[in-house]
């Protein structure tokens, strides 16, 4: 009887270019986007965006990630290449190599891999 109640989350609506992968869906394959991307669900394969990427704390990513700017709060198993700024929040786990220009790591964030910083721009 309790699990029949439903409510809607107040997710921001898409501006037409933003992609939101919410909790409750699985994505498999080469995910590419030219706009901002928000991931709270599961993704396996590869992720590539020319804009910003936000990985929520419920996200489980098994993929190589490429973005211009990224904020990670969830789990990423794969290499992360960010052209500009990468922010790892306290709940984040990255099992893979990181390449970025600017890195911000919150206390509690876990990195299991090589970190390369200060390069001009990452290769796509």
């Amino acid at each position, binding site marked *: 009887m309790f699990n029949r109640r439903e409510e809607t*989350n107040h997710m921001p609506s898409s501006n*037409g270019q933003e992609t939101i*992968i*919410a*909790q*409750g*869906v699985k994505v498999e394959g080469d995910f590419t986007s030219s706009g901002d991307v928000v991931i709270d669900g599961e993704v396996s394969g590869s992720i590539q965006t020319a804009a910003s990427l936000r990985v929520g704390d419920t996200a489980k990513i098994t993929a190589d990630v490429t973005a211009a700017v990224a904020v990670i709060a969830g789990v990423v198993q794969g290499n992360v290449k960010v052209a500009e700024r990468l922010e790892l929040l306290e709940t984040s786990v990255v099992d893979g190599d990181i390449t970025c220009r600017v890195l911000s790591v919150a206390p509690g964030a876990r990195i299991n891999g090589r970190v390369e910083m200060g390069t001009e721009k990452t290769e796509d």
Partner: protein
Amino acid sequence: MYCYIYDEFTQDKRYEKELLEIENRLTDLGLAGKTVRMALFRNVQEMVRDEIRRGAKSVIAVGNDETLHKVIDVVSGTDAVLGIIPLGSPNALAKLLGVPEGVAACDVLSARIVETIDAGIVNGKRFLTSLSVANFRSELTCDGLYRITPDVSGSLEVRNLAEDEYNTEHVSDPTDGRLETVIRVGVKQGWFGRRIMRESILPLTQLAIRSEKPIAVVADGEEMMGTRFDIGIEEGVMRVISGRGRKF
């Protein structure tokens, strides 16, 4: 040349007075044209096609959303401009286009603000508003690159020109060359397994639904059954007359 397509229900006595006012106003504005009335056993699409062939430059549907849907497929892809004079209900599409009901719509036709918009296409059939699937649990292939599968049964909506059900302020843009694809899934959270709806939103150009069992897909209010649905977008294929209050 204007061609007015009157839906069958507009011949009801309760619309008689309003139709007379509309016709008078159209004459005053110099927009009078040929009138074609829908009727049982008359193929409306064939009639509209004939009128366009004879030189109709503006096809105006007089009726509700369903009236408009009946003529969309024929008008899109031609040089003719599509307009609506809303009568009866539902008239959600007219509201999105900023066209007021009844006689006031004549002034919108007279101002003639023409927008070029996209149309969605599912298994070869065009749709203007949206396509939806209830109890969606199938695999969705997006832009031929990746697949999305919901963990539990949810709902799928593919919008070309439609309001967000939960946020009516938000209307998908029918001029951006993309279909706003929304997957809603209830995710259990907490001790009591309370369900919270989560919404995935993807702007796509190509989608494919593959299902093991036949599923019902509703596009522009019309139901289609099947296991395979190929969905795409045709950019700028339709020209519509809209009002200043259009929502996109």
